[in-house]
């Protein structure tokens, strides 16, 4: 059944009109709009920096832990016997790279390059984990890999160490 515009049909009687439920854009108070725009601007400015710092902290933590407790990480080393010295050395080397990358990210030293290297490292981790089956650990690291990839493309960074 078709109805003419502006004439409420029998079913609409007694119901609030839809338009009244959602205010028009120009009905939003100017102060709220300004605040929303400002919040969006601050987020756009600082979100990459916060993401970079948090990723750096993650790398720093794992790097430090792999360096001081290599024996707890050898189970992750693919192919190599977990109880061998080679596995320990590989964990130490991995931890060292993570630590340096973490410092680079936190301090804002060539952050995009550091994020790109972190992406490669995380990709290697995700692949080595995925080989033995998809688990929640694998998916968690996949998310961290996503953050590293996003940071690789971010040009706007605050708190960057230059010179």
């Amino acid at each position, binding site marked *: 059944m078709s109805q003419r515009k502006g004439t409420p049909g029998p079913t609409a009687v007694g119901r609030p009109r839809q338009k009244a439920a959602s205010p028009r854009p120009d009905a939003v108070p100017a102060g709220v709009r300004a605040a929303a725009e400002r919040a969006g601007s601050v987020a756009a400015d600082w979100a990459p920096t916060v993401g970079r710092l948090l990723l750096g902290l993650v790398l720093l933590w794992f*790097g430090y832990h792999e360096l001081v407790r290599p*024996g*707890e990480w050898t189970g992750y080393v693919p192919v190599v016997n*977990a109880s061998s010295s080679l596995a320990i050395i590989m964990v130490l080397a991995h931890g060292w790279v993570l630590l340096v990358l973490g410092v*680079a990210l936190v301090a804002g030293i*060539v952050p995009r390059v550091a994020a790109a290297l972190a992406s490669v490292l995380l990709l290697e981790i995700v692949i080595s984990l995925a080989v033995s089956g998809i688990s929640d650990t694998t998916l968690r690291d996949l998310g961290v890999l996503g953050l590293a990839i996003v940071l690789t493309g971010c040009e706007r960074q605050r708190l960057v*160490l230059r010179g």
Partner: protein
Amino acid sequence: MIGFRGLTVLLIAGLAGIGLAVLGWSQRYTGLVANAVGGLGSASAPATPAASPRPATPAASPRSAATAPQAGPSAASSAPASPGPLLSSEPYAQYAYLEWPGTPSVAAQQAASGLTISVTRQPGGIAVRAGVVGQPTGPAHFYANGRSVYVIESSLGDDAANVDYNLGDDGLVVTDAHGRILQ
């Protein structure tokens, strides 16, 4: 481009990393829990060939009892049960998950990921057989007056889909009726 200050910071970080690596190398076979209770991973097997039998009770902590899976053949062992300290008094008590008796909780099942544990009640105690999934299980270890078996796992985050990516922080503890760790 990386500047002088950035290079300096990275250099310091690199040197600190080398220092930490030296420290890590010097304690490469120690683990948070494994050192205390005799873990199930490599951390509890310093310089021991995988195929050779090793004592079920780690030398690093003679007063605590833990069964470690034996990768190689060894004679079935039967340990005299001398009660040690209370499990609850040990620093790793917070990481202990009851595996037996009863149905293990979800957390205990996750803690036991990657491990095969079988417990048999026997006259005067229990026989515990533990191993790593995919590896030969060692002989059963008899614990006189054994009443409960706990899995020690300091980080459940490394256990998933019946795979434990880090056995260095795993262990097994048997206690008597009073909660004392059996040797």
